[in-house]
């Protein structure tokens, strides 16, 4: 048994043009990602705000910040395969993931339903990473049942007064803007009383409180809104139509949540670690049982990649992502979690030590055990969130059952 070099295994057959494109992206990533950032991205160490912003600004300068956008707004006009190659090369080269809240989440909603003024103001700022967005969806009593949300917005002249609490708000500590679902009516169906507001986080009444998770990190937050003023012009679309926009957004989230490129990069890392870990003088990568487990995940990932490419093609042919896109979220997160399971198995005893500070910037003590080991157990525990967020995998199955199978 041997470990093949990447160049020896070709899963995607590319045209000469696509190969050229891949080489261009690869070179761009190599030139613009520092070793420090590459290492942090690959090992799951914490990336800070500047790490994300500096990369995103380089993408903007190159014109590559928003491959998914229509060309008139600053998109690239790439083919589905090009978009896919781009994702894969960014992940392989250790580029930080582009923060989705602006460019892939709120932007499509603004494009489809926002006013001209909103488009003119927000979209260029998103391209330039001048704002950091966060997502005000979930509430303590409204998780899977999002439509039960209770944060209230009352119209008062030319602005709304918003009161309530949002939770699980990722990276709200960095955000200056939040797109937020609020209740503007208690009449009729619950879904018909929700509006979609763009909220300035830097104002009195907005309090961000970190939530510590089981891996010791604090990337999610509670956001308390107390008599927060939001101008009416910051409402997207019509009042009480926010649910439609919110669903539109979640549909868009699912191709990026599949994270095929990132999973490929993590499988590569897994193989490197399994080559370094030895038992009785034999590398773990040569252990048949372990190898077969890697094979299982790679096969799942190939199937996922194939479905992602199909959905991307449909999108570029003008068909919006159907409910089947939910499969991308389910399988994508299962693959990601499966990889974290094999990583924690691979490091054996060194899953135990836990030095949260070692994942922060500026920690320069000797690692405990091999350097690659320290972030693996926290990452394993942290990544259990993936089958919960963005509509839990159970909710995704409900969506498919209802919308595709007609139950």
């Amino acid at each position, binding site marked *: 048994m041997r470990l093949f070099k990447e160049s020896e295994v070709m899963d995607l057959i590319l045209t000469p043009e696509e190969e050229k494109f891949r080489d261009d992206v690869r070179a761009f990533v190599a030139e613009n990602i520092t070793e420090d950032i590459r290492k942090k991205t690959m090992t799951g160490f914490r990336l800070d705000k500047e790490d994300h912003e500096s990369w995103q600004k380089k993408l903007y300068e190159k014109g590559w910040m928003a491959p998914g956008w229509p060309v008139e707004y600053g998109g690239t006009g790439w083919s589905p395969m090009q978009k896919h190659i781009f994702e894969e090369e960014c992940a392989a080269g250790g580029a930080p993931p582009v923060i989705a809240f602006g460019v892939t989440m709120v932007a499509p909603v603004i494009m489809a339903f926002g006013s001209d003024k909103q488009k003119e103001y927000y979209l260029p700022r998103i391209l330039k990473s001048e704002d950091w967005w966060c997502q005000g969806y979930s509430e303590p*009593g409204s998780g899977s049942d999002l439509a039960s949300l209770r944060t209230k917005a009352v119209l008062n002249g030319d602005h709304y007064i918003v009161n309530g609490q949002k939770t699980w708000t990722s990276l709200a500590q960095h955000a200056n803007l939040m797109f937020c679902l609020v209740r503007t009516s208690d009449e009729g169906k619950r879904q018909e009383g929700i509006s979609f507001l763009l909220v300035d986080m830097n104002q009195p009444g907005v309090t961000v409180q970190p939530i510590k998770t089981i891996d010791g990190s604090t990337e999610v937050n509670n956001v308390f809104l107390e008599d927060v003023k939001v101008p009416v012009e910051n409402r997207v679309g019509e009042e009480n139509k926010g649910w439609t926009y919110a669903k539109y957004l979640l549909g868009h989230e699912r191709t990026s949540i599949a994270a095929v490129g990132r999973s490929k990069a993590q499988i590569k890392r897994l193989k490197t670690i399994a080559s370094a870990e030895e038992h009785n003088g034999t590398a773990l990568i040569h252990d048949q049982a372990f190898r077969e487990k890697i094979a299982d995940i790679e096969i799942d990932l190939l199937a996922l990649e194939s479905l992602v490419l199909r959905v991307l093609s449909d999108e570029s042919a003008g068909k919006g992502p159907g409910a089947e896109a939910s499969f991308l979220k389910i399988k994508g997160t299962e693959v990601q979690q499966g990889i974290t399971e094999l990583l924690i198995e691979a490091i054996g*005893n060194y899953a135990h*030590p836990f030095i949260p500070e070692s994942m922060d910037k500026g920690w320069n003590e000797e690692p405990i055990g091999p350097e690659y080991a320290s972030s693996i157990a926290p990452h394993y525990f942290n990544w259990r969130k993936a089958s*919960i967020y963005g509509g839990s995998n159970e909710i995704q199955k409900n969506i498919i059952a209802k919308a595709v199978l007609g139950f």
Partner: protein
Amino acid sequence: MSFTFTEDQKLLSESADRFVLDDYNFETRRKIIGQDGGFDRDNWKKFAELGWLALPIAEEYGGLGGSTVDTAVLLESFGRGLVVEPYQSCIVLGAELLQFAGNVEQKSQYLPSIAEGKTLLSFAHIEPTSRFNLCHIRTRAIKQGDCFIIDGEKAIVHNAETADYFILSARTEGDTNDEEGITLFLVPSSSSGIEMRSYPTIDGLRASEICFNSVKIDQQHVLGELNQAAEYIQKVVDRACVLLCAEAAGAMDTAVKLTVDYIKNREQFGQAIGSFQVLQHRAVEMLGAKDFSRALTYRAAGAIDQSNASERTRAVSAAKVEMGRSGKLIGQEGIQLHGGMGMTDDMPIGHFFKRLTMIDAIFGNVDFHRKRFAQII
């Protein structure tokens, strides 16, 4: 083989459950973890008074001469509350090794004081590159007159910083992976030449990486036969595996209960999410996983004191495999059914998940024990 608890075992189980219920709630445990050394010495004193530390120690050395099943009963209760006091390190590994390998004089000197809670042991055995191979020992002990000079590194030594003595494995002959040539030493933790780097583990315990730099140990601190320690170690680690499974059985029990309670109370779509069949079935799978693992664990605990080597291996490895699988299912599903709340450090479920995951990752994970079992089919 008996599948029911004796009267004594029932009493033990009740009193240990009572301790966890009264004195070891989630908040108390959190405070204990934050203390110096990572456990509560008053609790340790209490364990001594209740006879729990004496449980597996032979009667002639101040113990109660309990069976492995007896200790399993205690550890199952500990598992229900994720008790962090160093019972595994000091009693299950330390005292048992001493009991098994030590001579009469050594046993008389240390075991009574261990049973009284006055002496703490820690097993310094695993090395940075040993993975799950118990015979992978690079640490060397070289004879010099009446002494041995010890050099080497030990990894993930649980409760090292609070130990009075280490039971240290070192190579006195042979090559790194040889079964022959390993010897055990009782090393005072205050010996000069010991460098320790201590840290928390992800499941709330404490461990250390230890460097032994020319540590000088009198030859009377050798435990058992020279070069023959592999057998002692294997036997004691096998028992420790079963007792870890017993602890896991308790942890799984609580994890399942917490999850079932949560889904019965959490309302979405105008009803408790536990009213959805899809979630009920998943809770049932969790319960079944716990029941199977626990049953197999007690069977192994009953078999281990009386079986031959291959029966013992099958029993232990089967229990450890089943525990690893069940613990993973229960931990992962426990989080999933709690939803976002399960991800928070403030909810107990994540702490059970972490302990269950780490029990799998010590002394051989599912793959390791599956292979070990496969050699004897």
